[in-house]
């Protein structure tokens, strides 16, 4: 088993984004006429979601497998 970094990365930003968005919705506060919590919270949420989707459905090649050297892109090309 390996830990795909995109998974904790995505999960963390989904949680943080949800928290910040919720603050924006339930306690709207404007700086310069923008509810920055709401809008940037959604950006964080979207980033987290994309990372999670990539972790679940994306192609490999970004997994760390400690102790084993795998997935060397240079070697994936067929010899000419």
């Amino acid at each position, binding site marked *: 088993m*390996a*830990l795909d*970094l995109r998974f*904790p*990365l995505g*999960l*963390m*930003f989904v*949680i*943080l984004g949800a*928290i*910040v968005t919720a*603050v*924006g919705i339930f*306690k709207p*506060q404007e*700086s*310069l006429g*923008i509810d*920055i*919590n709401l809008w*940037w*919270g959604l*950006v*964080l949420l979207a*980033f987290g979601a994309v990372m999670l989707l990539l972790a679940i459905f994306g192609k490999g*090649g*970004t*997994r*760390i*497998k*400690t*102790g*084993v*050297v*795998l*997935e*060397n*892109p*240079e070697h994936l*090309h067929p010899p*000419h």
Partner: protein
Amino acid sequence: MHILADGSHLLNLGRVDYLIFIVYFAFVLGIGAVIKRFIKTGDDFLLSGRSVPAWIAGLAFISANLGAQEMIGMSASGAQYGILTTHFYWLGAIPAMVFLGVFMIPFYYGSKARSVPEYLKLRFDEKTRGFNAFSFAFMTIMSSGISMYALSALLQILLGWNFNISLVVSALIVLIYTFLGGLTAAIYNEVLQFFLIVLGFLPLALLGLKDIGGWSGLMERLNGLSLANHYQPQTLTTLYRHLGSPHDNPMGVDWFSLVFGLGFVLSFGYWCTDFLVVQRAMAANSMGAARRTPLIAAFPKMLFPFIIILPGMIAAGLSYHAAHAAAADPSAYHLPMKNGEFDYNMTLPTLLGHYFPTGMLGIGLTALMASFMSGMAGNVTAFNSVWTYDIYEAYIRPGQSEQHYLQVGRAATIFGILASICAAYVANQFNNIMNLLQMVFGFVNAPLFATFVLGMFWRRSTGHGAFTGLVFGTLAAVAHYGLTLPLGEHPGVKGGWLLFGHAPLHVYDSGMAQSFVTAAWAFSVSFVVTLIVSLLTQRTKTDEELRGLVYALTPRIKEHETRFLARPAVLGAIVLGITLVLSIMFW
């Protein structure tokens, strides 16, 4: 840094902000705990088992550099020096990062050295390795301690937290995840931190720009500020036009000390030889990935000025306006004052407090804390490797089992953190973090770059030559620092300690100019001495032993099977091209 006398503090947090801290630290520690399961050997712990993909290594590479001096220091410099601060990026980082990826990584990675000092051992001899290993170990502990000190001092001012408790808690968090997960945990957390910083500070730059009236509003205010400080109007908004004399710009530098001192010696000395960053490339999973590591890192590095320096420039512009507006608006942003001058170090935290409500404030502060803590973790993991491979295995107990060195690596983490805490209290004595760090970099890395250039590209250079060059280069730095002073300073931490009451040999317009020229001397002396002593001494390594370590004796890497856009030279050319365009745009 100062403490407000009445125990008050600058920012008020809501419960949500604490919740955000808790979520982040839960992930940081959780990653350490999960990765522990994959660690079986010393190489797993200290080198991530050479299995990290390029994009992770690249983002960790840039993140390891985003320590204490970067976030606070560069936004402070942005407020003080305007766009000139960008020289630390486009001139003082990108070319060296490209050089590292294209020309130097093949020797670092190909030699199978596990650390920078170990490369020196393979290429030269034991004493050159020892010199570098001990000075690097000292430097990492100092840097880690400075990060800890700066974080705790900042938390005290911002949030009113107790200095000692902040110090111990942050040290404990770093200790736990580096102890459990070693380099891999540090690298993973550096990537989390990278995205937190980008996504946490980008909205700050955007809100600031909106506040100041867009780009044209910023330029107008900064031109006003340049004039008010008796400079030419565009001094704070152009890169190269006011470098003819050190008196023409607030950095107090001329183009020669900037280009040679910063752009060549300090920059290449740091990026190409500092094990803290090079270690991330060494952990990559293939030669191609290792070479792409600094090149992938160069893309965000190139764009960081827009999220780190730009807010500082906006802060300066808004403060200038607030001071000169007919009817001052008390709710407008202005830089805090300290002893009658702007307290530039508070630029970034006060901007956070001004623009971010509870919620985003938690994100911004988490990003700030993360940058300090990964600065610590980066230093501690680099220290572990050098201690275990280059000091313990080399001099204390060679030839032990993998399991033994894993235990030693873990033990070194605890020792490194404890030593860093001591260093943090030492750093408490010094006021200007930036200056102290640059002094240390000037001593350690500048002469070392001469050693590497000659070692990698000239097979005739010898161990005696390299060692003598390093010693004399370091002495030259000490001597130059000891015999000169920045304008208006007295002998002491800022230099001049060899004067004994005599007048300084030269008075620089700023401490920055003094460090640039110190580095230039250290490099030049090291280069010339290495050259001369090498010619006077016998080679001790045969051509066969130097295969893979020296340019002329290493087979060229065949690129025709690599995808065009993944080739290091192509990536490097793209990064350099964009940097050149940006430099011309703001010429």
